[in-house]
């Protein structure tokens, strides 16, 4: 079997992988390969044809494909090797990657370092266990987005959407503009997970009802979806008997959660965080496996691709430093601990002597609250917030001086303002 060598192998050619590869190149690495399963670079951005990307990184409001192009352009102008239509089958403990595609066949790549940038996948109907037969016409919102925006298909004529996250909202607008009927968006929780801007521009603009605290309890139809039963739910998210409503439709879109893609990580024995679904990482975006780094939606599901780019540049730089200068001395780590009101924090660990950019999400919608970061009974950071929500990731930069000499766990909490 052919075995080739590379300083750095980046698995995934979306915004995360491209930013990591470009940053590694800028940091002095030369033999870099991006492995991408699709026929082109750009990842999920190629199907995100709406705008709102790039406000932080470029100071402009770009569409997904335009944002992707800024990076594809740079990658193509560099000597970074891109293998498209390529699947990674395995990563060995000593970073030998087994790879397959039509051109090379089955080959192995010995990597000086690896960056995992596989993105995320969608939660499916099977995971929700919605009762009913298996009629045609049930799609995850992202699959429908690909079909409409890239393959040129209209999946149906009368839609119900379950889940008010941004993908569901964006598709509600997209389908309405293409002339089909979106009858309602149902949301299990009492609040929407999407940006207010999307509630206004995707639902209110088109008078599409948003039913909070509602879910779908049955799908009707044998060959094709004929309708769904929508029920109201109580505070424990259990359907309330007697509230069932039959809604006629031919297509159901599910926008019910994104899950970081980590089949490879799991198989390689990389430690995952059960809350994020992604690898445990330190402030350099290094995983529990030597010389393996991770970034983007594979680590935590992001709302803004701008943050993905920032996070991925850290991973790329760290991977380059690892290859060029070797593993740094182990001086111990501080663990970050989610406190009251906080669901998770990335990175989960910070090496002593380093600063960190923290990304975290809250557990619920809170108003008039403060973010408080403390370690060893010392308050390192506070910030008043009028409103925080689970659908809007927060970020705080802690420079190395702030963390110098600290020993115990670093907690991030929400404290109500008096």
């Amino acid at each position, binding site marked *: 079997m052919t075995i080739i060598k590379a300083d750095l192998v980046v698995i995934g050619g979306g915004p995360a992988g491209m930013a990591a590869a470009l940053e590694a190149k800028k940091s002095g690495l030369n033999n870099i390969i991006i492995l991408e399963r699709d026929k082109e670079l750009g990842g999920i951005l190629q199907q995100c044809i709406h705008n709102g990307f790039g406000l932080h990184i470029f100071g402009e409001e770009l569409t*997904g494909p335009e944002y992707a192009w800024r990076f594809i352009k740079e990658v193509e102008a560099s000597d970074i090797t891109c293998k498209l239509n390529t699947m990674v089958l395995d990563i060995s403990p000593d970073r030998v990657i087994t790879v397959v595609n039509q051109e090379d066949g089955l080959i192995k790549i010995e990597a000086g370092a690896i960056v995992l940038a596989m993105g995320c996948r969608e939660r499916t109907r099977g995971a929700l266990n919605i009762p009913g037969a298996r009629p045609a016409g049930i799609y995850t919102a992202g699959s429908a987005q690909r079909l409409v925006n890239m393959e040129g298909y209209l999946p149906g004529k009368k839609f119900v959407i379950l889940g008010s996250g941004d993908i569901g909202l964006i598709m509600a607008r997209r389908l309405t*503009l293409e002339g089909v009927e979106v009858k309602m968006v149902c949301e299990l929780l009492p609040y929407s997970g999407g*940006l207010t801007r999307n509630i206004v521009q995707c639902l209110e603009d088109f008078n599409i009802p948003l039913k909070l605290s509602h879910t779908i309890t049955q799908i009707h139809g044998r060959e094709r979806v004929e309708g769904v039963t929508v029920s109201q739910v109580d505070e424990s998210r259990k359907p309330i008997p007697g509230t069932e409503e039959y809604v006629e439709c031919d297509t159901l879109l599910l926008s019910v959660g994104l899950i970081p893609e980590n089949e490879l990580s799991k198989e390689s024995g990389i430690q995952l965080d059960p809350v994020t679904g992604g690898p445990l990482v330190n402030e350099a975006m290094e995983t529990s496996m030597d010389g393996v780094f991770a970034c983007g939606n594979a680590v935590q599901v992001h709302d803004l691709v701008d943050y993905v780019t920032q996070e991925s540049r850290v991973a790329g730089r760290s991977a380059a430093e690892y290859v060029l200068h070797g593993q740094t001395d182990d001086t111990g780590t501080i663990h970050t601990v989610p406190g009251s009101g906080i669901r998770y924090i990335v990175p989960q660990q910070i090496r002593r002597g380093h600063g960190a950019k923290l990304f975290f999400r809250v557990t619920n919608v809170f108003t008039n609250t403060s973010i408080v970061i403390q370690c060893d009974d010392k308050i390192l950071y506070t910030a008043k917030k009028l409103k925080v929500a689970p659908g809007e990731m927060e970020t705080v930069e802690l420079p190395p001086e702030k963390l110098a000499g600290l020993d115990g766990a670093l907690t991030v909490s929400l404290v109500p303002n008096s």
Partner: protein
Amino acid sequence: METKRTIICTVCPRGCKIDVTMDGGRIKDMKGFTCKRGEAYAQAECIAPVRTLTTTMRIIGAGLPVIPVKSQSPVPKEKLFDFMKAINSTQVKAPVNVGDIVLANACGTGINIVASRNMPRKDMTARS
């Protein structure tokens, strides 16, 4: 005749609720905004709301059957479906580059529709 409506501002994440009282197409009263940008947003929303339109257009001879496009500037909200009809009645031929005008002066508004990505010429039936 007086009409009232509540607008949620989308300029920043605060999402202030702004109550507007209109009379015959003019704003009589407005309260709830907490900054100048919000005030301007609510005014535009009530008098002449606009939206950036992003959609796809049929393309011939590329690797995919449709190319993502956007309005070069925001479109009057009431014209969105007219724009969609105009765009869906148009085709372009590959190659097309990001920024290329695929439909000029859509619906006589002076607003151009431009491509959001490159699509080189490619035989769709060929194996990659």
